[in-house]
């Protein structure tokens, strides 16, 4: 549970190039379109492809004033399982908090236990390989997150689409991303 009960706090873990920051920004924007107050911010360090990256979201029905870092997220999203051997992705989590993995089965962390958390699994890389023909797990992870948080898929898709059209200008790529989000939404499982 985050420090303020009326704010949902999310932490994204990925590697430079996987789009964790982009996903956090896209997620915030979509929630803003649904009438929520939002924050999205990355944790900046040396910028290198493949280096561990974290990004954060706050979502609330009320204006968000705090500008401190997120220490106790309610939800953790892990884009890359190889991070588990070097980073404690459960840091600051409390029992029953939620973790969404880009994985087909429950991963094993070498130095810490995952058994006290509510785990969600989605094969985001597999979906991305199939639909986008590249390993870009961030957009499918958005679909899985929306399902895990019980948010309205169509409303969110509309917002993602608008943003992606502005970014990519290629309708084909936008459609494929939307398809990947849908597939992840439909295939995420709660363990």
């Amino acid at each position: 549970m985050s420090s303020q009960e009326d704010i949902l706090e999310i932490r994204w873990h990925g590697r430079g190039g996987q789009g964790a920051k982009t996903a956090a920004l896209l997620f915030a924007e979509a929630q803003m379109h649904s009438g929520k107050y939002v924050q999205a911010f990355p944790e900046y360090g040396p910028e290198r492809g493949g280096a561990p990256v974290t990004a954060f979201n706050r979502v609330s029905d009320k204006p968000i004033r705090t500008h401190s870092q997120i220490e106790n997220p309610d939800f953790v999203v892990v884009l890359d399982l190889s991070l588990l051997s070097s980073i404690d992705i459960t840091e600051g989590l409390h029992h029953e908090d939620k973790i969404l993995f880009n994985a087909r089965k429950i991963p094993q962390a070498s130095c810490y236990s995952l058994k006290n958390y509510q785990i969600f699994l989605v094969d985001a890389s597999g979906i991305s390989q199939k639909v986008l023909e590249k390993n870009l797990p961030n957009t499918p992870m958005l679909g899985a997150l929306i399902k895990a948080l019980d948010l309205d898929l169509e409303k969110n898709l509309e917002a993602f689409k608008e943003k992606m059209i502005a970014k990519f200008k290629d309708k084909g790529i936008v459609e494929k991303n939307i398809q990947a989000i849908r597939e992840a939404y439909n295939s995420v499982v709660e363990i």
Partner: protein
Amino acid sequence: MIKKALTGNEVIAEAMRQIEPDVIAAYPITPATEIVQIFSQFVADGKVKTEFIPAESEHSAISCCVGSSAAGARTMTATSSQGLALMHEILHIAPGLRLPIIMPVVNRALSSPINIHCDHSDTMNARDTGWIQIYSENVQEAYDNLIQIVRISENKNILIPSMVMTDGFVISHGMENVEIAEDRKVKDFVGEYKPVQTILDTDNPFTLGSLALFDSYFEIKRAQEKAIINSKKIILEIAEEFKRKFGREYGYFEKYKLDDAKIALVAIGSISGTIKDAVDSLRGKGKKVGLLKLRVFRPFPAEEIKEALKNTKAIGILDRSLSFSGQGGPIFSEIRSAVFDLKEKLFVLDYIYGLGGRDTTQKEIEEIFNNIELETREDRTIDLIKYVGLKN
């Protein structure tokens, strides 16, 4: 009015697009780079008619601004940290020549050691250069402050350049909800820039930047000081007009639950939001605490601050930079001096925090309030300067 979710840098670039200055000269520096990067895209896409000058250094960028402003163009730049430090020589020249240049500054620590994250060392280092300095708590304030500042700087009785600050990364790269006004509304508010005089007006030639020795230098500098002092009145007038047209209220500072507060913090920038949450939490426990969030640091609204703090018993100043004087940070010096001649003794403590981007939590803010209460319970010698979250 359009509701959006934007980062601080995006919103500043958006305000600059709406203001559409005649000239922007800039050199990129983290974390302000995006401002001119986004703006240069507007130029390339033909969305603005602004002449964009990519300079070879910040010293050159601000020098270009001096030239263009002297030629009568509405002129802007943007920078941060070492970039602002490299401009330092010319920073004094712009207000001396009474050139109303506008500069968003993204606050970042100064080297060395090298660091890209937020503190206020860069703009505090420039506090005595003669520029108006306005600090923003969040993305919305960054947008609103930039729109208002154009009118303040360009007022024909002022003609003083201005800096509008945002906290590096926390605000510059943090996305938040923000209300953007229609282009027309912003353009109508800032209006067309009509320079009082321009060096390109050959029918009315004049000398700019001449030598002034002991017979006139003093008077010229005093006139410059009067101009920035006079901007206090204009800052409130523009805030009033802004409130009428845009619906949001601004002043020299914001009083948050301050009127009946016994203990208050004084802060600038993004930490103010975290303090408001801490104030609410402590008020829930029956503590009479409040916040004075300083928006205008130059000119310094000393009398008004004194009046606003007169009913408090003790205040803590949050300084995000050092003066290396052993006498606390720059905000502490100003505030302590402002309240010095209050009839009732007011305890003033300094809390140095967040240097080089170190995070300060709501819990730490609550501990500061508790610490002030403890330290000032009895009239005893107290340690005036403290360091928040400093490791042993």
